């Protein structure tokens, strides 16, 4: 049984039919990349899985149970966390407060303190700035904070929406290294990226999304070799 099973979901924004029957699976322990151009529906897919939008039809199963009708705040304690597009840190909360909000549903004080230390170990920069208001962090630091905050909920499945967006090349490298580290420590990851090159490099499998539909799916290695993917997303002629 796959950890996440998305089955033929249709999601609408008013009359706009944004997802036209998306199906995908993520196995426990995998990194799965979802690539596609602007407006393809990547963010909408993640928002539907995380419960921010309810699909009009279709099912989302997590750990075998249907979650398509759950709302976002109910899914965190089930083990789903998201690093939203554009980071979405709470600009007026301090770094520590942001991280604590990630652990909002938890009551195990010791466990939370332990995870806070872990996050500070992965991102020492955050430790230096823990009393600083998040709005004054640099873009890269905000990305670290958004990732750390998601980890604070001890997720089984981490949804990441374009974590490398707007970062300098060095930081992009670091971001993908972090993604691999997090995955090695046992968190399953569904990664949305426009940087298809890096996304396919760290992923086990990948899906290609185009105007609300999955047009290709394969192992990451195969996708990297696929001529249409090379042409459209990897910039190889």
């Amino acid at each position: 049984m796959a950890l996440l099973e998305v089955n033929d979901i249709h999601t609408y924004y008013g009359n706009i039919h944004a997802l036209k029957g998306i199906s995908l699976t993520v196995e426990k322990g995998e990194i799965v990349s979802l690539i596609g151009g602007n407006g393809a529906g990547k963010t909408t897919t993640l928002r539907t899985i995380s419960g921010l939008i309810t699909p009009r039809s279709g099912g989302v199963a997590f750990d075998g149970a249907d979650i398509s009708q759950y709302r976002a705040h109910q899914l965190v304690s089930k083990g789903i966390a998201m690093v939203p597009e554009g980071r979405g840190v709470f600009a007026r909360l301090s770094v520590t407060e942001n991280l604590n909000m990630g652990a909002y549903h938890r009551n195990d004080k010791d466990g939370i303190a332990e995870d806070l230390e872990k996050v500070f170990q992965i991102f020492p920069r955050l430790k230096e700035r823990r009393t600083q208001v998040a709005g004054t962090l640099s873009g890269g630091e905000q990305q670290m904070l958004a990732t750390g905050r998601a980890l604070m909920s001890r997720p089984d499945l981490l949804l990441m929406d374009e974590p490398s967006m707007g970062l300098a090349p060095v930081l992009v490298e670091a971001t993908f290294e972090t993604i691999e580290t997090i995955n090695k420590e046992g968190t399953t990851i569904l990664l949305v990226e426009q940087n298809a090159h890096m996304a396919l490099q760290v992923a086990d499998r990948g899906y290609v999304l185009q105007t609300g539909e999955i047009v290709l799916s394969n192992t990451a290695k195969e996708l990297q070799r696929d001529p249409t993917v090379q042409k459209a997303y990897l910039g190889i002629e």
Partner: protein
Amino acid sequence: MSQRFKDIDYIGVVLWLFRTAIVVVVLWGTISKLFLEQGNAYTTIDWIDFLIAGLSQGSLYALIALGYTLVYGVLFMINFAHGEFFMSGTMTATIFVALPLSSSGFLDANPILGMLIIIIVAMLVSVGVALLTERVAYRPLRRAPRLVPLITAIGASFFWQYFFRGLYGSTLIPFPELQVLVGKWTVFGIEILKTRAVVMVASVIMLIGLYIFIMRTKTGTAIRAVAEDKDIAALMGIDVDRTISITFATGAAMAGAAGILYGMVFRQVHFFMGFVPGIKAFTAAVLGGIGSIPGAALGGLFLGLIEAVGPPLFLEGLGIPGAHQLKDVIAFTMLVLVLIFRPQGIVGERLAEKKA
């Protein structure tokens, strides 16, 4: 293009003249009062009295203003029914608790316990009314254009006024007098009405308590998170609807407590009592910067002070008769001036631009 520049300049000049005129009038009034007027001048003790009255009234405004600011912070909505949250708790607790406790002699025998019971009942009723209003009238409109909940709030305000008028009648109901609070205390050689002192101390304690709740507790942090971004807050596992309810409840609890303090000072309650303090507190919240908690506190104190000191100081100095009756005019003039010149208030952000 050049036409546009001309327009901006022209408005700027008019506003600048307007601003200067206000400063001149206030200064002129003040100077003529303090230095030019002969006889009939107030003594230092009188001025201290005005100050204390202003601070005491201002701390009540501050308590009520918090409700506006908290709700605006999370929903970007001005809850015009807030004055009715204040009234509902106060009236109910006065009729069902304060008056019976007073006539049975319990209140004067145990003034502290008695007042606590009255305040707690008032807070609970205010919270109940607030939660009901939020659930029934506001929550279904969460995704509606911003004007819609605003109009609904005005409707809710009327609804509660006439609901409680039907329930309790339209007569003035006396708030019982506490024997221990009759008269004055002398603090550092200054005589101060006991009720005013109690109002100030109680308000300061509640303001500090609220500040700690919002800034230091998990629920308070969640309220601030919801105020920033509801979707992201939900992704943290925060139940946004519940947190909004808690926000309404917090503001209403402060208003309920403020209502009893208000009853203590003015010694009467009635179904319309929420209107003027409500609008004044709204003014205070805008003055301080709506959405900001310290802003609401500062705005409330400032408004109370200006209302108390303004009439004897610059209005009388301008030779306006019956200046004291004009304190409401001062409050609303301030509201208009703040909206024109400093919409972000003393410490806050712009009213119109906040929800970018």
